[in-house]
């Protein structure tokens, strides 16, 4: 960094260093900057975007990504990852849609149960048997796909339409269509997750486990219990995201949430959560999910095809991660 600004005065240099250091200490400010500039660019492209309807579209798109990325953030803090979130979400949505004729309560409870069970199985594999999280959750995704494909013809044959209540919370709005219910659900999830990470012993244990697993174990924490709970929680959150998505789309099939797997990882990464554990916040992840949402809106307005969308998506992940690393190093 210093070579770029060598001709400048020493005072300017120190100011830049101070700014960098401040930015490194407050990474979310940088993210908000990125988010605001993306919103402005989008507005320049499509003036109508700067309205309630425009933001509404972005938020609704970001909701399932953001909720899944909450699980991803929690697990990344422990140096883990969950590649089965998309399949858990799909499975939960499928179970919920199938039980829709029996009423919304049964449907939602069954959906959440699917999530918790699959997540707990992941947790047992990773926490108790020390299977690599990448492999464990990958295998779980395969197992779930197989299970639900065969169940679709047996115990879950029948309804694939979500019940009215699920459709309302997934796709409906309150306050005269201004505030989507799904965004409210996300806010509730966000409050819960942020409180848990910052204020509870379990949250601190997640950070500790990712930072130094040996020291954490030696200081008396039962790491397998922490991991079990973390993975179960990730499954639970994925199930919520899946049910909301089912409500938004209405009709559920087994490829419902597959496209959200990589964005859920990307949101956490963009939000500054370290994939090696021990550092990151859910606030950052929320901003990451919103950035992906705005990007989606922008590319839609531009009439960009899927090809361009994917290239931009990937480039943003690389660019922001690179930016983070260089800011952190120069500070």
């Amino acid at each position, binding site marked *: 960094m210093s070579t770029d600004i060598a001709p400048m005065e020493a005072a300017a240099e120190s100011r830049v260093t101070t700014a960098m250091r401040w930015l490194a200490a407050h990474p979310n400010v940088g993210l908000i900057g990125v988010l605001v500039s993306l919103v402005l660019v989008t507005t320049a492209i499509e003036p109508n975007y700067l309205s309630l309807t425009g933001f509404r579209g972005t938020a609704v798109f970001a909701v399932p990504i953001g909720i899944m990325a909450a699980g991803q953030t929690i697990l990344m803090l422990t140096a883990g990852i969950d590649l089965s979130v998309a399949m858990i979400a799909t499975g939960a949505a499928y179970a919920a849609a199938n039980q829709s004729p029996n009423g919304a309560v049964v449907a939602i409870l069954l959906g959440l149960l699917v999530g918790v069970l699959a997540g707990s199985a992941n947790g047992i594999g990773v926490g108790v048997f020390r299977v690599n999280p990448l492999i464990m959750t990958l295998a779980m995704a395969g197992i779930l796909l197989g299970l639900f494909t065969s169940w679709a013809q047996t115990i879950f044959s029948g309804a694939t339409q979500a019940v009215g209540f699920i459709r309302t919370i997934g796709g409906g709005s309150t306050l005269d269509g201004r505030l989507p219910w799904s965004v409210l659900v996300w806010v509730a999830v966000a409050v819960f997750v942020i409180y848990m990470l910052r204020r509870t012993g379990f949250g601190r244990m997640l950070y500790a486990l990712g930072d130094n697993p040996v020291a954490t174990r030696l200081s008396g924490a039962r790491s397998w219990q922490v991991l079990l709970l973390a993975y179960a929680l990730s499954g639970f959150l994925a199930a919520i995201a899946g049910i909301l998505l089912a409500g938004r789309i209405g009709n559920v099939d087994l490829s419902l949430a597959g496209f959200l797997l990589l964005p859920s990882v990307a949101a956490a990464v963009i939000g500054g959560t370290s994939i090696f554990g021990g550092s990151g916040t859910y606030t950052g992840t929320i901003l990451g999910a919103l950035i992906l949402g705005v990007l989606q809106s922008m590319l839609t307005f531009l009439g960009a095809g899927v090809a361009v969308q*994917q290239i931009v998506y*990937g480039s943003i*992940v690389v660019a922001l*991660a690179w930016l983070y690393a260089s800011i952190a190093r120069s500070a």
Partner: protein
Amino acid sequence: MTATTPEIITASTTPGWQRWLRRHGWTTGVWLLLVAMTIWYSTLIPRFGAFEVSTIVNNSLPLVYLAVAQAVIVIAGGIDLGVGGMLVLVNVTAARFMLDQPFGMTLLIAVLVVIGAAALNGGVGWVINVSRVPDIVITLGTLFIYQGMALAILPNPGGGTSDGFRWIFTGSEVGIGRNPWPAIVMIIVPVLLVAWWMGKTRSGLSLYAIGSNRTAAYLSGINAARAKITAYAIGGAFAAMAGLAVTAIAGRGNPNIVGGNFTLNSVAAIVLGGVALTGGIGSVIGAVAAGIVLFFLNPILTAMGVDPNRAQIIRGLLIVLVMMVAGLLELRRQRRS
């Protein structure tokens, strides 16, 4: 005195044998598993001939190449989520430019595509090295980018290739036949080349060095940046081979293949093949066997009359089970030492 002589002989030979087993035990085990599966499969189906062998070898080609690509990169301490995207990108690029071309031209295109893929992925290695961002994050980005580029190059399934080119990978001008030898040669030659390079040469061994301890490797004078870029370039070349194999098997390009799934299978394959995700341990030879085993499960379970969806479940459970056993073995070894 006479009684101790054989005692000494066995004592001096056992450690060498044990050391070999400790080093290559997992790889040997995976190959034995593959042999056992083949024998079992031959008893399961009424006719086990050249056609069946050819089908299995041909169709496991993409996964085998991807497993080798992933193995080289993971041994060097990285991980490349983009290999599946590279497969799709090469598949469509090759199919688009090979359409209606004569055999010689398709061969030239294939070579150029492999070189291009190596350069592109080597560039990814360079970015990882300069930015010091974790490999998994950068390559998550490249997975998107490659898949997007594939869609830009060929928006809809299509394209084509020459009959001769299809023969190179599949032993048949229509992509499926009774001659497994071309595919076997196409696996053995590049894989042995890479295995020899990684096991015997200075530059190849530096991949193991940076994978097991990057700082120590750097301090002992290894050019860590060059080793990392080389690993990614070779990984890119093998991912390109996988893409070419798909082109040869299908005879066309398909941008709608989900590259991510291929990536995930390649990771599963190398772990089953004895490559440690932490880097520095394992070999491409084991990854080859594991790639075939993973593919082989499908026809075996079908032959056993298991419904394909169950096969998916069994496959997942098997991977987890193998990992649990590996974890327990590792734990026992740590306790003992």
